[in-house]
């Protein structure tokens, strides 16, 4: 099982870094869209190795972080019901709703199970015909195909006790919304490679054209990210903007046609609320009319739950790259991974948790202190 070492080679990394350092002449702000990329950047210390002029802004690409409070509250309500087995990916369990999280519901008797695939939840439903099995279907275009497959199979096999609470989000409308923000500072994007491996790249040229912003499809291993940054700064320094694919080994221009066909069958594009940002038009998927019977919001009639976001938490501005996490007054005081106010503090991919965990404080006094103390 050796498939990643090639993309962790320090010698090759040094060559890419040398190229990036030689290329960059002026300050640039680049947003990496995906939380997986944020995680990799912080975990490998890439943010410290690139030139000081290049600022990486951590984008809204952590699916756990952008799931709206209202939907978490719906999940908590459904998971509390005695007839329900509520299945979720692990890191959704600690995301705070209004006063509770799924761990609390579990400790109060809720039957909550961590699964690694929505198909495991479907299997549970077939094994427990007298229980209602609900899967929390969150994520970007990456997790959408397996979730679509689970619903597709539930209908095909006739598993009436399976349903899905869907909060799928789509990347291109989010990029559009970020670029439309009057305070937008982003000058280029590293697009999420795995999203593109599903959807292809045809959604991006219109964004490049509309905003004259370079977009570079980028992978997740350290060398992939450095290669993406290298492609980006070359475009920026030359004053160019085009869609570039620095992750061609995984991303064909057309994406995964079978997955896209399944997605268009099972899901319909819808407006979607993003935690801390608000509603972005056409930025999500819900189950299509054909699969409405499998929609947990409909089945458990939780459509009436409406929740306002925290007034203190500025995660929306963090997600849009308008402020750094430590510029929020609640950061590290009222809001910590132990007691997150906003979802960006919850997941290790969330920008605030990553800052907190790794103490990546870019305020002059603290960063100098940190450099001095670990240098």
């Amino acid at each position, binding site marked *: 099982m050796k498939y990643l070492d090639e993309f962790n080679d320090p010698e090759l990394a040094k060559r890419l870094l040398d190229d990036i350092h030689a290329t960059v002449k002026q300050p640039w702000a680049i947003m990496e869209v995906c939380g997986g990329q944020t995680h990799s950047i912080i975990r490998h*210390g890439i943010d410290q*190795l690139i030139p000081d002029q290049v600022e990486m802004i951590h984008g809204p690409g952590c699916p756990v972080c952008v799931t709206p409070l209202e939907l978490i509250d719906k999940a908590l309500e459904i998971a509390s019901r005695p007839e329900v087995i509520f299945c979720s990916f692990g890191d959704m369990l600690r995301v705070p709703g209004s006063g509770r999280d799924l761990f609390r519901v579990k400790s109060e008797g809720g039957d909550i199970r961590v699964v690694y695939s929505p198909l495991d939840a479907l299997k549970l439903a077939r094994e427990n015909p007298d229980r209602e099995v609900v899967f929390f279907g969150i994520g970007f275009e990456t997790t959408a195909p397996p979730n679509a497959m689970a619903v597709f199979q539930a209908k095909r096999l006739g598993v009436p006790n399976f349903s899905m609470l869907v909060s799928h989000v789509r990347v291109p409308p989010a990029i559009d919304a970020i670029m439309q923000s009057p305070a937008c500072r982003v000058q280029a994007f590293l697009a999420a490679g795995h999203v593109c491996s599903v959807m292809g790249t045809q959604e991006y040229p219109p964004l490049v054209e509309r905003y004259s912003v370079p977009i570079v499809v980028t992978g997740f291993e350290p060398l992939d990210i450095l290669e993406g940054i290298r492609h980006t700064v070359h475009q920026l320094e030359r004053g160019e903007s085009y869609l570039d694919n620095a992750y061609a080994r995984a991303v064909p221009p057309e994406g995964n046609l079978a997955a896209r066909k399944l997605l268009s069958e099972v899901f319909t594009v819808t407006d979607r609320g993003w935690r801390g940002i608000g509603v972005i038009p056409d930025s999500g998927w819900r189950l299509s009319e054909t699969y409405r019977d499998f929609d947990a919001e409909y089945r458990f009639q939780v459509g009436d739950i409406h929740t306002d976001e925290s007034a203190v938490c500025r995660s929306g501005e963090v997600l849009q790259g308008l402020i750094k996490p430590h510029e929020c007054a609640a950061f590290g005081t009222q809001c910590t991974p132990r007691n997150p106010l906003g979802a960006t503090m919850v997941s290790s991919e969330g920008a605030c948790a990553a800052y907190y965990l790794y103490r990546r404080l870019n305020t002059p006094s603290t960063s100098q202190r940190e450099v001095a103390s670990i240098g």
Partner: protein
Amino acid sequence: MAEAVDAQPLDFEGWACPVPLRDSPTIVMGHGGGGQMSAELIEHLFVPAFGSSPGGLADSAVVELGGARIAFSTDTFVVRPLFFPGGSIGHLAVNGTINDLAMSGATPAHLSCGFVLEEGTELGIVGRVASDMGAAARAAGVTIVTGDTKVVDSGHGDQVYVNTAGLGLVPSGVDIRPDRARPGDVVIVSGAIGVHGIAIMSVREGLGFGSEITSDTAALHPLVAAMLAVTPDLHALRDPTRGGLATSLNEIATASGVGVRLVEKAIPVPAEVGNACSMLGLDPLYVANEGKLVAFVPREHSDAVLAAMRAHPLGGGAAIIGECVEDHPSMVVVTTTFGGTRVVDTPLGEQLPRIC
């Protein structure tokens, strides 16, 4: 908002939960995860009730009794599944308590065992657990001298829970404690990390990783004896079980008030563990071990101790992974393969697999 930031300077160095357990009136799984939530439960609930132990919060307490220095420890095992590749709850129950004693430098001698059995559990299962415990005890040269059995209603337990407690003699001149690490100490790990946790996960979650990974459960006192034969002046030892190597290193860094500086590429992570972790979104530094130790050794003895470890069957994969420094006290910092740095923190509760 900018004024508010200035008015509330961030102080990460001494951060602790100011109002204990304020957000959960009930026990949640994280309280048993061996991370910050476990530590808070001990600090804010158990220590105020019991009074603090003179020996601090080490893996085992060292008490004076009739002129002898005795290490005393207890551990409870709630493993699911009961039997897994490379071992069972029986092996863990014996080796785990032996290792807690060994981390004080003690020679383990006697164990007690307490069983909580669930009504309806097959006798054959209990028999296999007992048989594994007997075999592990004989192999380690300890005796199980007293015990207790309770049965709970069906549905109120997970077949078999085991508690063991153990006693061992600490040789004179040996003083191994989590607060004795000093700047300059060399940090040595006894072999490949993360193996037990991934072995358990591969069967618990039904995840096949292409090759079978077996638990590393082992009694470590013979390895500790070989190290003590080089020098009695080992500063700190820990067996990184729940919470993994990262948690053990943080505990020692905090107790001793030293910084720990790791070199990522020196940390022995087997390819199977590394690949499984990258698939699941876990970090090998936080994955459990059951047959490994991490040692803080004075620099002048480190080469000889490392050689003695490598010459021992339980330490063949031993490696120097870092050192103690005066900088960043109580923090663990790793230099990444690429030359960047990141802080390795204590996990909050259970490590949660990431979604993507």
